[in-house]
């Protein structure tokens, strides 16, 4: 039996956990940055991997067909109802229509429009683009994008914050330790957002190390010694060995702040359905389901994956069985959409245009990194929107060298490029219009969080034929919040209060005082059980119920 303290590695971080006896043998949990409770479940250093294979194995067990290497190019819709998607076989190039009463976008985030990202290469925002190109579905909070301070260069793989926690130093091109200059008190241990911004600021001041892959800084952990690194930072050593060919016991590690997570996505209601296009659902990082607001806490992306997967899956099934789901799917409409995509691909391969998709994409990535990154300001964002719109216009003149319609990476880039640019424009325009700082969205020219004017959700949509997306805002009702806006202790307090915040906080305090029981408190503050799929309305057994 293995009880009490145990040394484990979580997210590349070696920590000691003390497990409650009562929790022995349950799925392991821990606390995580910004959380007070043991609420993050994990499996060794491969939580996502374990979840993915469990689901995939069960899909095979249920004999559910999976059509691999198929890419949706367009959603089939009539302006009100989604009828499925036009899909391209990435091997044969064949186009076909998938007619469906419910269509779910679960394509992950849009980190790759930055080029420098910890995301997989396929996270190019194609799901968001599909929704955007309907002209009716809306994207939420696209400007809310998280950056992580220390990803290695060039691979973009994260090295743990434990490197700095244990005493590692950030150095610039002169070997100078610069963090104490900016943050004399916390130095390298300031919060993730602050360290990322300071690193970016220092590189902007010309102190970055030039390399074949762009500028970076150094993370030096050699002062920790071989024994410590071998014992406590083994994963960092492995990453350095496999992806850089260096030994962090002797060599500094090239790092820079890197795009990490997309909080924005296809705006849905709590059931995962688009309020503007019936039958279109979305979940996971692809969706704006309101799990993260403008910043995401560690562990919450896998939480969203597993919870949204479970709930939205059930809601989709319920929808298909309900009267709303009894849709007359139109083969004629599907044919029209397939023909439109076929014509567009044929035109693309026949285009003798002089523009290079590779060059336009590289420029987009640079604009996003320089002007729509960690630091944002009105002038830069204005120029980013102008330049991205120009790139979008130029993307129509992309010429191809290989014009076969089957497996053809050049063709794939050519048709994805304008879609990526449209997604990039929703981010840049959202960031330009939002004249405040909130979560991961930081405006140098508007450093305060302005709850009075900006406690709202950005909605982006793209009317057909327009050269820019349109933005709209959906306000939030403070008087219905379980946790009204307040200062959460990150950084300096700089908030323009919402007039209702104090009133709602008083109400909440009163309820908390009057109702010590968590269930009656929850139903007084924010009842939700009635909104859940029927099979999930039961009361969850909790370890602490016995003791409380």
């Amino acid at each position, binding site marked *: *039996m*293995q009880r009490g303290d*145990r040394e484990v590695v979580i997210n590349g971080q070696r920590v000691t956990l003390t497990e409650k006896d009562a929790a*022995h*043998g*349950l*799925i*392991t949990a821990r606390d995580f940055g910004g959380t007070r409770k043991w609420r993050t479940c994990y*499996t*060794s250093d*491969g939580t996502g*991997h*374990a979840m993915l*294979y*469990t689901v995939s*194995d*069960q899909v*095979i*067990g249920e004999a559910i067909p*999976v059509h*691999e*290497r198929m890419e949706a190019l367009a959603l089939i819709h009539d302006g009100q109802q989604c009828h499925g998607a036009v899909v391209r076989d990435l*091997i*044969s190039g064949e186009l076909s229509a998938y007619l469906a009463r419910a269509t779910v976008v679960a394509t992950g985030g849009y980190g790759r429009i930055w080029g420098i990202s910890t995301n*997989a*290469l*396929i996270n190019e925002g194609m799901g968001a683009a599909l929704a955007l190109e309907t002209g009716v579905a809306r994207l939420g909070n696209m400007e809310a994008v998280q950056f992580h301070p220390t990803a290695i*260069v*060039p*691979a*973009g*793989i994260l090295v743990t914050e434990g490197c700095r926690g244990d005493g590692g130093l950030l150095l610039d091109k002169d070997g100078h330790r610069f963090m104490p200059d900016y943050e004399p008190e916390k130095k390298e241990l300031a919060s993730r957002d602050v360290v990322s911004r300071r690193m970016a600021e220092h590189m902007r001041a010309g102190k970055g190390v030039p*390399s*074949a*892959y762009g500028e970076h800084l150094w993370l030096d952990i050699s002062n920790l010694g071989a024994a410590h690194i071998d014992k406590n930072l083994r994963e960092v050593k492995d990453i350095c060995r*496999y*992806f*850089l*060919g260096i030994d962090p016991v002797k060599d500094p590690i*090239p790092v820079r702040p890197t795009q990490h997570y997309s909080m924005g996505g296809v705006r849905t209601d709590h059931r995962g359905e688009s309020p503007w296009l019936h039958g279109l659902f979305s979940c996971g990082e692809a969706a704006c389901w309101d799990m993260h607001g403008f910043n995401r806490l560690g562990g919450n992306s896998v939480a969203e994956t597993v919870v949204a997967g479970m709930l939205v899956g059930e809601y989709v099934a319920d929808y298909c069985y309900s009267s709303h789901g009894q849709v007359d799917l139109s083969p004629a409409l599907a044919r029209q959409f397939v023909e439109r995509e076929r014509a567009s691909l044929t035109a693309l391969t026949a285009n003798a245009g002089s523009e290079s998709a*590779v060059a336009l994409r590289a420029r987009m990535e640079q604009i996003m990194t320089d002007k729509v990154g960690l630091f944002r300001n009105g002038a830069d964002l204005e120029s980013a929107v102008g330049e991205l719109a120009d790139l979008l216009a130029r993307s129509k003149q992309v010429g*191809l*060298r*290989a014009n*076969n319609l*089957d*497996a*053809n*990476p*050049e063709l794939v*880039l050519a048709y994805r490029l304008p879609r990526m640019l449209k997604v990039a424009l929703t981010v840049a325009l959202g960031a330009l219009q939002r004249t405040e700082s909130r979560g991961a969205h930081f405006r140098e020219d508007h450093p305060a969080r302005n709850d009075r004017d900006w406690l709202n959700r950005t909605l982006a949509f793209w009317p057909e034929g327009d050269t820019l997306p349109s933005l709209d805002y959906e306000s939030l009702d403070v008087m219905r919040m379980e946790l009204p806006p307040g200062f959460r202790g990150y950084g300096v307090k700089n908030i323009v209060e919402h007039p209702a915040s104090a009133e709602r906080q008083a109400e909440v305090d009163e309820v908390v005082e009057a109702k010590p029981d968590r269930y009656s408190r929850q139903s007084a503050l924010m009842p939700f059980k009635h909104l859940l799929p029927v*099979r*999930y309305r*039961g*009361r*969850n*057994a909790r*370890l602490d119920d016995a003791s409380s």
Partner: protein
Amino acid sequence: MKRAFNVFRHNPRDAANPPRVVTYTLEETPGMTLFIALTRIRETLDPSLSFDFVCRAGICGSCAMVINGRPGLACRTLTAQLPNEISLFPLPGFELIADLSVNTGKWMRGMSERLQAWLQLREQPDVDALEARMEPAMADAIYELDRCIECGCCVAGCGTAQMRPDFVGAVGMNKIARFRLDPRDARTDAEFFDLVGDDTGIFGCMSLLGCHDVCPKELPLQTQIAYLRRSMARQGLLG
């Protein structure tokens, strides 16, 4: 320093695109991996070159290829650790899509269906109750085998798989070992024997153990195969 990449090219759907080797030359940059090199070849020399990378961080298994004669993950192979001339071929044993891209997904699905490689619970869980408890040591042992990323290197490195297209490979046997270990799985050794107790399964293995040598995740394939063979032989002989 210049580096030559001899890359296999072929589009099986195009008669005018026969199998051949094309040489590309790149300037070596510090920290260059095969992912960076192939991306650069595609971006600057030949936009039609097909290959697969998804996570580019050694965890998705998409980029396995034969690198100077040895199956491995291209994303975490540094060019500086290879000779000046590098040869890249698609993994053998899988359907060729084009150039370095092969359809491992189709093969893995077929293998999983044949081996019924999914957890078959003794009883359906109650969603409102606490989860069933498992000893942490057991959970760790299962996870050790669950780390497989289905990259296909073990199949490409397997002598039997080159002769028998229906051989389930180390990836398949590892899966059986994983579910056999799991106390939640309802299946008995007699049932596992029906799945894996023949020449397409555990008795097809010649113990050359190329799989063990090339596994990028360093899974304990040698031990697992030996252990499974012994258990299945016992099951076959004694019932």
